[in-house]
């Protein structure tokens, strides 16, 4: 599992995990747009067993104190691993189907808690999907 973090002083608020380099690419884009990549921890699950994916996400949540997990695909291994974590800790929030608009809203959020920020960010992410043309 790969990990990338920004160099800023902020404590990470969420773990972003997905297929291939999805999470790294998305967080890199957050950094490029607003310089707040340090609020997010990047995990890649390439080549890992389901147990390893779950264990690594748990470790990062414990290490950073983050309470939010963003994953890419509802059917993905990371989402299943996150759901197992939520079973043990209902205070964690999972947002599956994350996109760039979701993460940008999340890192800028002034909500009272990361979990509230995650819920609002998910709504922003949904609204950001538009289709133009016939």
């Amino acid at each position, binding site marked *: 599992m790969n990990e990338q973090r920004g160099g800023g002083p902020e404590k990470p608020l969420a773990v972003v995990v997905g297929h291939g380099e999805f999470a790294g690419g998305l967080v890199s884009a957050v950094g490029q747009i607003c310089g707040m990549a340090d609020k997010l921890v990047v995990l890649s699950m390439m080549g890992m067993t*389901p147990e390893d994916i779950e264990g690594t996400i748990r470790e990062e949540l414990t290490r950073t104190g983050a309470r939010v997990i963003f994953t890419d695909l509802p059917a993905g291994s990371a989402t299943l691993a996150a759901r197992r974590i939520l079973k043990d800790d209902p205070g964690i929030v999972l947002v599956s189907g994350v996109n760039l608009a979701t993460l940008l809203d999340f890192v800028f959020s002034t909500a009272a808690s990361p979990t509230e920020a995650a819920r609002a960010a998910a709504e922003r992410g949904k609204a950001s999907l538009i289709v133009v043309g016939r």
Partner: protein
Amino acid sequence: MGIHLYRIDDRLIHGQVVVGWGQPLNIRFLVLVDDLVASSDWEKDLYRMAVPPEMEIYFADVVTAIRNHAQYASDPRPGILITGDISSMQRLVREVKAIGSVNLGGIHHRAGRAEKLRYVFLTPEEEHQLRDLEAAGVEVTAQDVPSARARPLSEVLEGESR
């Protein structure tokens, strides 16, 4: 129609299965054969929620899958049968003679396993089990996604670096 793919994948239901294989093969049902999952309502709910609405999912332990195989095989819809380990597939193949090929989709690193492909790691015992499958007349290939080349077992056991 019936079962289009018999797959060994320790992640069971995940993106490669639901999207990678599911979309090009127009898969409409999955059979998840796992003794542990079949015995837990919570586990079944977990995997059910990962499956899109157009796909039906059946859960079975190995014994039930053997008993119900003819029903899966005669389903008019295309489906995939998945086990999480080689042993379960081997037990199934022993009792269901209609299984002619098995796909190695993901057996990831764990203590005692050696890397054969990026997504296939095996213990000596697991290598032996796969050779037994092939000796029983089952074609064993490794292919994580449809666009990849199906690698025959002999090539898999040689390892990628050779």
